């Protein structure tokens, strides 16, 4: 059963409609005389200093002491409500602290079991043969791409690589459930979204080699893809910074009434950043169509999830922010597809943020600069690469349906291998971006200091050509 935990229902008894919450601007503070007063005491302006004066409104309850004997109210505590600026809250006579963790962990939505058989069907979104095959072939392509580019890095042909192994279903199934006009603010382990949207294998290779065909003009490390054409905002290495940006972009979609949402991806590590929390809160308050997609793969480089957080994963944080949320099996492509499909519909139709936590496993190293066997058991990695492999599971399902075969599998794999090998050879041969690309795009037009520095640099290169790589054209 696919069910988003709707955390907003608990506050429907607010005294004003929720969609107006953020528009209420007249505060209960004596500030209106600001605008008209001619002589202003500047110190009044430093509201932050004095927040505590106003912020801690004293709550007076009915229980006041008379002599030494408490006069008990005849009302039951539950008949009383506190009407405070955030809404109405019931009183309780019991000094009970909320639990630090729920007794039961939030369940994880799945459609296919480990053997690729549908579990008792809930209301998952049905997908056609064409879509299923496209999803599967894209997952395979992504896997082959990782294998071959990883190898290219090991051979010293590219400086760095980062695989998506184990998270192919998250990449492809989420992309398949989105529309291509939905704006993506990725972390860095979601190249499958770009692949799904038609970014060619040659485009990937050109970025990895930083040649002149790279959209990013060779300025960023490998795997920092980005494409305006594909509504996929360029990857940056900083973790979590893209999350509030997706909220701002979603606000634009909301204002212009686009039939689209933004989607931002991040990992369990990213969920610890201030930017994640800022973004969740902003999105809830501003009621924007954004999907927060957390790939909880258990590891942030070498930091295991238990060193990262103590809540029941990331999904429960949605409740704290008033955002509908769902936990999904990240290795079940059908479950991810259904969850994202419904999340997108909710986000756009109800103009609300949605949080999706996909439970998965980073089956590869963090990057080519990492050896994860140093900090986690090899059999753990092997188990996830075997039993839980998202491709195997999806393949079993489409094979049962009669939509896929061994022949199709080997034909597809060898075709993609060949294409990749050609793409790498071609990318290697393309020259690097020209020297002028050092100075362009810092601003829309180079400032005077940049022009001077370019002139100086060109003189230096001319004088000391041996100091500089020869494959960068002047």
């Amino acid at each position, binding site marked *: 059963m696919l069910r988003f935990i709707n955390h907003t229902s608990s506050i429907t008894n607010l005294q004003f409609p929720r969609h107006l919450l953020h528009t209420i601007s007249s505060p209960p503070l004596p500030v209106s005389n600001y605008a008209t007063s001619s002589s202003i005491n500047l110190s009044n302006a430093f509201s932050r200093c004095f927040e505590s004066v106003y912020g801690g409104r004293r709550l007076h309850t009915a229980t006041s002491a008379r002599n030494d004997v408490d006069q008990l109210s005849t009302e039951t505590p539950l008949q009383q409500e506190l009407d405070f600026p955030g809404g109405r809250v019931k009183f309780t006579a019991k000094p009970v602290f909320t639990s630090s963790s729920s007794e039961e962990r939030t369940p994880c939505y799945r459609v296919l079991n480990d053997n690729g058989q549908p579990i008792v069907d809930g209301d998952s979104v049905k997908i056609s043969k064409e879509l299923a095959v496209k999803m599967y072939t894209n997952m395979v392509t992504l896997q082959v791409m990782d294998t071959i580019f990883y190898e290219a890095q090991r051979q010293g042909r590219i400086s760095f690589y980062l695989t998506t192994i184990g998270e192919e279903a998250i990449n492809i199934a989420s992309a398949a459930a989105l529309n291509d006009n939905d704006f993506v603010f990725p972390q860095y382990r979601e190249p499958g979204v770009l692949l799904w949207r038609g970014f060619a294998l040659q485009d990937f290779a050109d970025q990895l080699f930083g040649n002149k065909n790279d*959209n990013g003009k060779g300025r960023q490390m490998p795997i920092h893809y980005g494409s305006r054409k594909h509504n996929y905002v360029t990857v940056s290495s900083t973790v979590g910074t893209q999350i509030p940006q997706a909220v701002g*972009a979603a606000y634009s979609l909301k204002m212009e009434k686009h039939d689209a949402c933004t989607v931002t991806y991040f990992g369990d590590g990213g969920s610890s950043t201030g930017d994640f929390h800022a*973004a969740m809160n902003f999105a809830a308050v501003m009621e924007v169509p954004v999907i927060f997609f957390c790939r909880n793969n258990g590891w942030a480089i070498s930091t295991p999830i238990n060193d990262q957080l103590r809540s029941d994963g990331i999904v429960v944080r949605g409740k704290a922010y008033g955002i509908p949320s769902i936990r999904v099996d990240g290795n079940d492509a059908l479950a991810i597809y259904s969850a994202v499909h419904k999340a997108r519909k909710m986000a756009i139709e109800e103009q609300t943020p949605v949080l999706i936590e996909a439970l998965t496993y980073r089956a590869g190293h963090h990057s080519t600069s990492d050896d994860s066997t140093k900090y986690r058991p090899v059999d753990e990695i092997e188990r996830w690469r075997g039993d839980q492999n998202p491709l195997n599971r999806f393949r079993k399902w489409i094979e049962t349906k009669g939509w896929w075969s061994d022949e199709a599998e080997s034909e597809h794999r060898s075709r993609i291998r060949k294409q990749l090998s050609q793409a790498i050879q071609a990318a290697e041969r393309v020259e690097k971006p020209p020297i002028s690309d050092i100075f362009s795009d*810092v601003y829309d037009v180079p*400032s005077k200091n940049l022009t001077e520095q370019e002139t100086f640099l060109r003189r230096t290169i001319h004088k000391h050509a041996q100091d500089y790589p020869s494959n960068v054209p002047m």
Partner: protein
Amino acid sequence: MATNLKRFKEFGSIFINHTNLLRRFSSSSAVLSSVDAQLQPPTTGTGKSINLYTAINQALQIALDSDPRSYIFGEDVGFGGVFRCTTGLAEQFGKHRVFNTPLCEQGIVGFGIGLAAMGNRAIAEIQFADYIFPAFDQIVNEAAKFRYRSGNEFNCGGLTIRAPYGAVGHGGHYHSQSPEAFFCHVPGIKVVIPRSPKQAKGLLLSSIREPNPVVFFEPKWLYRLAVEEVPEGDYTLPLSEAEVIREGSDITLVGWGAQLSIMEQACIDAEKDGISCELIDLKTLIPWDKETVEASVRKTGRLLISHEAPVTGGFGAEISASIVERCFLRLEAPVARVCGLDTPFPLVFEPFYMPTKNKILDAIKDTVNY
């Protein structure tokens, strides 16, 4: 007074009300004026005398009115802002275009980047420059590099971050700082600081329409104190162009923002001692107008820089180094810096911390008599 007022009307100079705050800096007349007859005030519309926050308010009003894809947001901006800069805007343009945000600077700037990346003009207010640091990562690693790192596939050039900065007489550590130098070390953004109401309006409109992200620091001391005739209509002033606001021949003084009025008082006092000072308003700190400063120092042979921020690592150091590179043989004295102390901004010691008129005056004399 009458003469000064006449000058003020002619040249659109800074007029500062006589207040006890100002007296800390000056025992001289409280009326300050520029005497650069070459300054051509913008001619759009007829001007009224308004203060700096009202000028900012006018600029914001024009920005919203002239572009339906412009938005203003930040802490408390919905009701007009703690300094009243957004007064009336939510009422006029709606609470979807002028709105409060949760209290979280990294959220404000991150949100602004995303909004700008979609082609909007995102005008973010950080309530005090002292609180901009939670957004430092978003400004330095994100906004500044957004265009460059994507090879111009994406940009957030529509982003303008406004923040009141500088001393105010009683702000202590966290309502007084001048953090401009941190941002001057970041290629990809522009840093702009106005000195007066007319400058504030024109420079802010330029910053908002500028196709690159801008950090716009507003001298909060002058929000109410600085009153000047400001054209009512829509006008812009060029970025990265410094302005000689007082011509002289013996020494060049360079500053920005609120400090210029203090420097101008020192210039007036120095003149009584027969020293002719040239005063330059840098306006845009990066990318800055070296040529105007260089031309002036070639003429005067001496340079003094003054800013409120601590002297060590302040932007004065950059100006000093650049001008020494270009004018070494023309300099007749070491470059002087009269700046804030290398301490946190101390509340009751503010009059000691500040680069006051007499500190500047002494440095002018020392430099001229070197």
